[in-house]
């Protein structure tokens, strides 16, 4: 059993309380959340969550299935082993004097990041990238004195294809008056295995 970081991505109904349902379930099942990021998607009324948690595969799979049971969660997949691109964003306010400013700008350039605000005694840096890149830049800037940091959680997309969160065309469920008799197994949504 190896503890590793997992990236779960979820498509959720865009309703009040959804974030609460997800985070409270993770807390109840004893999971530490590294980060959660939520935002709108290409589909109306649906938001996308990227949740980073730590745990062994079996435990994460268990919590994924529990989250899948949340009615407002339309679909949730673990994309840890998929080829994917993950990014996070940080805004950093760094102390800057007339003499240190140019050195800061140089570092920021090397990281292909941006200076987004300048004041008499500080600059604000915007950096986007994977966690490692953001951390390395922060380490370098620390020497100048950091005033404030704001960091988003991670967001991620798998490379190529339609993506693992594609949902079926029809979102309507007809309430069956009576359960159909014959097992039309293949037609049903296939289980996870």
């Amino acid at each position, binding site marked *: 059993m190896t503890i590793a970081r997992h990236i779960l991505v979820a498509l959720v109904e865009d309703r009040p*309380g959804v974030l*609460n349902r997800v985070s409270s379930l993770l807390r109840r099942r004893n999971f530490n959340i590294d980060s959660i990021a939520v935002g709108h998607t290409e589909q109306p009324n649906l938001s996308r969550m990227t949740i980073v948690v730590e745990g062994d595969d079996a435990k994460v799979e268990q919590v994924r299935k529990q989250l899948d049971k949340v009615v407002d969660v339309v*679909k949730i997949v673990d994309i840890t082993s998929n080829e994917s691109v993950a990014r996070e964003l940080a805004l950093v306010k760094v102390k800057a004097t007339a003499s240190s400013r140019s050195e800061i700008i140089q570092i920021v350039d090397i990281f292909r990041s941006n200076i987004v605000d300048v004041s008499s005694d500080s600059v604000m840096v915007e950096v986007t990238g994977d966690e490692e890149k953001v951390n390395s830049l922060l380490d370098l800037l620390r020497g100048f004195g950091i005033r404030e940091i704001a960091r988003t959680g991670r967001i991620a997309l798998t490379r190529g294809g339609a993506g693992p969160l594609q*949902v079926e065309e029809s*979102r*309507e469920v007809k309430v069956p008056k009576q*359960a159909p008799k014959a*097992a039309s*197994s293949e037609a049903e949504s296939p289980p996870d295995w």
Partner: protein
Amino acid sequence: MKKTGAQILCESLVREGVEVIFGFPGGSVLPLYDTFPQYPKIRHILVRHEQGAAHAADSYARVTGKAGVCLATSGPGATNLVTGIANACLDSSPMVAITGQVARPFIGKDAFQEIDITGITLPITKHNYLVLDANDIARVVKEAFYIAQNGRPGPVLIDIPRDVFQQEATFTYPERVNLPGYKPTLFGHPAQIKKAAETINAAERPVIIAGRGVIISKAFAELKDLAEKAQIPVVTTLLGIGCFPETHVLSFGWLGMHGMAYANKAVYDSDVLIAIGMRFDDRATGVVSSFAPQARVVHIDIDPAEIGKNVRVDVPIVGDIKNILEVLNQQIVPCEHLDWFNQVDKWREEHPALVIRESEALLPQYVIRQIYEITKGDAIIVTGVGQNQMWSAQFFFYDKPNSLISSGGLGTMGFELPGAIGAKVGRPDDTVWCIAGDGGFQMTVQELATIVQENLAVKIAIINNGYLGMVRQWQQLFYGRRYVHTPLSGPDFVKIAEAYGIPALRVTDKKLVVSAIEKAMNHEGPFLVDFVVEPEENVFPIVPPGAALVEALEMPAPEKVTRSSK
């Protein structure tokens, strides 16, 4: 035509076939109560505490198979429901709980009797709603009943502000639900079913563990087919009791902490375990590391999150049990498993868990057995929690589904009396016996008034041992016999019953047990018998906490035994 939110709610409930609501009024639900007289089809049963409403609705749901409905006002009314909602959640009981909320302009202001009940019940409901617009009520009710009753059942709470009850809106009841995030898998994957059949066909020592899922799915005939076709011994969980006739030759009782030694042994020695509609609760498995160590496990359940949660599973099948067994049974090769059957049957002879020790004293087990004899097993038994519950499960033989109603997952003392009310309301033509602990009975005793007001012919047997018996037993066995705060002084239960208007008897002598039960049965209305039983009688077998199922302590050997009538 425009209707008020309260009318829309009632119309929607009628559309869902709701016949009974267990409730208790208050300020925020007054507009709803004011509307009830327009809907005489809905019977409202006034409880004496909202916990009773939730337990009654839960129990009603178990005996009828359709969602039970409970109703409470905002604030304390809503919080009083919480225990009952949690109870329904852990036992997968379909329930729709409706709560009033303060009017919309007051939400978030800590207004009088404002409580965040959707927040509080988040982890103990399948889903919940705060309805902020009367136009949403019909859709929400439709969804709530759909979610509560489909897939793995459970409680759904609907919180409605007072002014939304009064708001006018047009009523149309939706025909469909649109819940992209809720689509339970109903049919098992054919490849998995095939794999399960191969596993079962290759088994030498197969055992079926059948849980409450079989009852929920109404898969009794299919389960029986499977067991008989391949002559597989059937063991149930506590909540699965009754899903397979206990008097059937292939029935080997139930497993777990107080289960029969032979059931636990059969599971331990099995080479293939077919777990159907059960969730490997720790009270059922004992220490998991030594649970069925040699077995390949086939697990059939509608809830994918139960697969592999507690116990490693070799062949999972997700879907509705009835559907799955229908397909699976066709692929099962008829077989005898004669050696294995004889082995398990021999264990049954060697570990006669259901024998009542010979004694002049009034033993609780004897009381339960006599209720079984006199009702001829044709009754619904609703139990409390503790020793009375275990004896009820052991010494009564259940041949019909939903004939034992008990709080399993939450183990809620006080479930017995309101639970019996729900069962009697749901199945008015059946005999309902409430088997109460003297401790648990005092937690919800006020519901005696509900029984009288509604004239419900519930028969009540108090197993009065003067102790919080199950806790006392643990103190005796595992805490050096130090009975810290478990001796229990009760009131005079006969006088209590009479004060509420229920005739009652006290029995202290074994010889009077039969006549007391007969008297209770022959009386038309409700009746209470206070059985003052042997105070320090213990429940055996017992698997000590942290031990494996096969390490159960059994009844200390008696000198003489009376063979059970089974």
